[in-house]
């Protein structure tokens, strides 16, 4: 490995967007490097990263090269020193990310990179790097655009671009229209590297809205969820409606089909396999395994055809924004840990419904996790979750014409699968929150 690759090997694991949490990076190879502009030396760099388990992933980094020290505000972005030059993560450098916008606006092509815009862009807007996220880094330009720089790269068209674009072109008011994107060649495939969208000015994550409502409920000693001022049910109903309309449009403009009984059996097997893997990580699941498997078997043996289509795939309250004009859905990438093939497979839209229903449970109970056990509060949290889950389904049913609650077997199996996934996640990342999905499994499994 070169000196540069050595420095990157040390630096990568501490980045929030590094996917191999807890695993040591054994090798980093620079697959491709391309200078972005004539000014500062900023290079678009594609890395191939191998970890101790032998897994390889690709990551995208904008590397700034400076002969001297970097200015104060970039100190935290420094990667290391190579050949007496300072290397830094230029995604945090306003000048470098300004260049990206410039290139998008001009629709430029470099040797392996191509910049596309679908609208007239103002390249002079000043950039602001938002906090790092799990799988990408976001930059806001003025109050008009947001650029999502994907960090972990899988070869091919990113479903976020694919679905958002299809929805926007289909006239959906529930997505932020794509304004441009960056593509490059990876493994011989045209691969999405970044996505520029209209920035949702004055918006808030659904999670923040929902937890404000829960906080309000907890502050009332003797009022029920439908009596307190912070009631969220009307918002939930509108969110359900927005979700259903997005599903309907996706079904119309992208492939969909009706899966037969074999498909149900396959899905059932898949859920069983995922449970096997989860129990290996979280033995606490063992006592519930029988109930979980019974629920999965119910799904596997149903003979009714199941409509499948493209879906969001990682749907929860953190993926929706309340704007001045209603709800907007974000991040159609699917679960970041899964392969591209898995993420683009046709699935039942009820998986998204189940994801959101699970999210209501989380919103209701995460304050409990912070406060410790309190049966009175737990009762009220349950009441809040139930009220909003029903409202979401009401809104969904009204717009979709079919009520997700009528598909109780599917919905329950998908919710349980989601909860199992959450258990694994909490065991690894936030043990204090483990009681949230465990409690849900207990409740759901005993139904």
């Amino acid at each position, binding site marked *: 490995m070169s000196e540069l690759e050595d420095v990157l090997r040390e630096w990568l694991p501490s980045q929030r967007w590094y996917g191999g949490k807890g695993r040591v990076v054994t090798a980093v190879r620079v697959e491709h490097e391309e200078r972005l502009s004539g000014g500062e030396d900023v290079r678009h760099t594609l890395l191939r990263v191998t970890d101790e388990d032998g897994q390889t992933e690709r990551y995208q980094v904008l590397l700034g090269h400076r002969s001297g020290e970097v200015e104060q505000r970039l100190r935290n972005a420094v990667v290391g020193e190579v050949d007496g030059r300072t290397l830094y993560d230029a995604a945090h450098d306003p000048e470098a990310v300004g260049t990206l916008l410039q290139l998008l606006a001009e629709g430029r092509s470099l040797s392996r990179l191509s910049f596309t815009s679908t609208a007239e862009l103002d390249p002079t807007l000043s950039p602001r790097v938002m906090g790092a996220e799990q799988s990408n880094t976001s930059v806001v330009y003025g109050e008009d655009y947001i650029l999502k720089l994907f960090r972990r790269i899988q070869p091919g068209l990113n479903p976020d671009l694919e679905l958002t674009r299809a929805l926007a072109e289909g006239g959906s008011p529930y997505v932020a229209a794509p304004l441009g994107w960056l593509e490059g060649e990876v493994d011989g495939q045209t691969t999405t590297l970044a996505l520029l969208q209209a920035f949702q000015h004055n918006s808030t994550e659904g999670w*923040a*809205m929902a937890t404000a*409502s829960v906080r309000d409920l907890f502050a009332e000693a003797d009022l029920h969820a439908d009596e307190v001022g912070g009631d969220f049910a009307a918002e939930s109903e509108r969110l359900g409606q927005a979700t259903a309309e997005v599903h309907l449009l996706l079904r119309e403009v992208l492939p969909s089909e009706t899966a037969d009984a074999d498909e149900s059996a396959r899905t059932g097997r898949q859920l069983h396999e995922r449970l096997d893997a989860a129990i290996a990580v979280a033995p606490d699941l063992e006592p519930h395994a029988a109930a979980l498997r019974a629920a999965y078997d119910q799904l596997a043996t149903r003979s009714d055809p199941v409509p499948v289509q493209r879906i969001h795939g990682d749907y929860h309250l953190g993926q929706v924004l*309340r704007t001045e004009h209603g709800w907007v859905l974000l991040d159609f990438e699917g679960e970041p840990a899964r392969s591209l093939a898995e993420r683009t497979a046709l699935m039942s839209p009820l998986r998204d419904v189940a994801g959101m229903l699970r999210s209501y449970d989380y919103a209701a109970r995460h304050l409990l996790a912070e406060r410790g056990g309190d049966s009175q509060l737990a009762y009220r949290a349950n009441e809040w979750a139930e009220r909003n889950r029903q409202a979401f389904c009401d809104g969904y049913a009204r717009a979709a014409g079919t009520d997700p609650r009528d598909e109780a077997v599917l919905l329950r199996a998908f919710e349980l699968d989601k909860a199992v996934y959450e258990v694994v996640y909490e065991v690894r990342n936030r043990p204090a929150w483990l009681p949230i999905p465990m409690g849900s499994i207990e409740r759901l499994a005993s139904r």
Partner: protein
Amino acid sequence: MSTPEYEHGELVSLEESRDPLWFKRAVFYEVLIRGFADSNGDGTGDIRGLTEKLDYLQWLGVDCVWLLPIYESPLRDGGYDISDFMKVLPEFGDLGDFVHLVDEAHKRGMRIIADLVMNHSSDQHPWFQASRSDPDGPYGDYYVWSDSDEPYSEARIIFVDTEKSNWTWDPVREQFYWHRFFSHQPDLNYENPAVQSEMIDVLKFWLDLGIDGFRLDAVPYLFEELGHNGENHPKTHEFLKRVRREVDALYPDRVMLCEANQWPDDVVEYFGEDGDECQMAFHFPLMPRLFMAVRRESRYPISEILATTPAIPKNCQWGIFLRNHDELTLEMVTDDERDYMYAEYAKDPRMKSNVGIARRLAPLLENSRDQIELFTGLLLSLPGSPVLYYGDEIGMGDNIYLGDRDGVRTPMQWSADRNAGFSKADPQQLYLPTILDPVYGYQALNVESQMRSSSSLLHWTRKMLAVRKQHPVFGMGDYQELGTSNPSVLAFVREFGDDKVLCVNNLSRFPQPVELDLRRFEGMVPVELTGLVHFPKVGELPYLLSLPGHGFMWFGLQPGDHP
């Protein structure tokens, strides 16, 4: 009986400061003459009583007093049934009293506007009596008569509870007459040029007496046509433009406030294309949304309505309010499938009963001083001219047993003396009883006692009006909401040239942090407007503030001293 002493403001003549846009900066104060002050001890407030209280209103910081109908009337609809457009209701006083009131207000730099009903008169009006008895006489065509009750069937019936039809049979003339409101309020016939001239003469009559403007009641209904629903007819707009032209030609700084109880998209038509109709109109949906936002601890009910409110001509202004004399039914804003409002309110019966029905501000907010201050702060800082309702500046209560409307029309509480200092009459003689309950009763809650306590709501309100007055931006400035990741915080910037004000409001009962993107103001220093405390300079990073539950702050953004 003691009368509180108000420090006298400077006596200024309005003649020297003719400003056609005064209404954009003004704080309005709605007064019920009947309920404000009784000068002659008959148990009913009167114009002289109000005149005696002008010092108080000047001290408070009021710019314009808005009066409900003052005209001669059989009072079958709260004075909105006028039987003589050029006379004052005798129990309120006479024209001399009115001229005196206007003169005294002007001396104090204040203005007076009053309600005027354009659409109809009382059936007791001599015009109507002449019209029904002498169809061929000069007044025969002053009203809308028909042999049939069929025409204009597209026009909805407004008072569905009491009226079966918009037509009523008159046994004297043996014809039907048209009325959009009660059957004792026949609509004037605006197709008749004589009626148009007559009503413009009515306006000029009052303008000559010095009145500063009108709230024109029920303007959408002036013209009817077959096949038209009788609202917002193009001829109505034509007529309003004519009224405006004639008023402006002779009286350049008078204001016309249109009463059109409709959605902002529709109301803006009454500003005219170039601001050549009414200068002001009430923004009705904002008020219930303020209450909803605080109840939901979410700014979106407010953000949404302001984001969808159309721009209005530069010389026009919204009137905004928290409470007024009327019940503001939600039907007015939900009629048109406004499913958002419907969904929110249908799910929350408490909101429905609270906002729809006339309650005063303090009882509506369960007498929470923090919330009263937050709501008043929003009223004074959101785009539009604020309209205060008499008594709300001291946190007066209501009497729900008097019924929807009268409950908020009880006598103003001036002092702990008999009848709250409102009247020297026997208590039994009062037009409505004073409030006596232990929380809101006048013995404890009155102007006099609040004047004595510098921490009172009254002093606080006065202070805020004074701050507002120092910054024309509140009335004149652009409005831009700052997005924040905290849904419970409503933050916005008002800008008018160099006058820039940042307002941050915590709609939640809990303390909240907020990070604001103030890069546009990098290097400037936020100075809190009530205490002039300098806050840290705005840098390139998000600006962090913490607000107490239901807290709000106003900052002037000043250029920083150092580069």
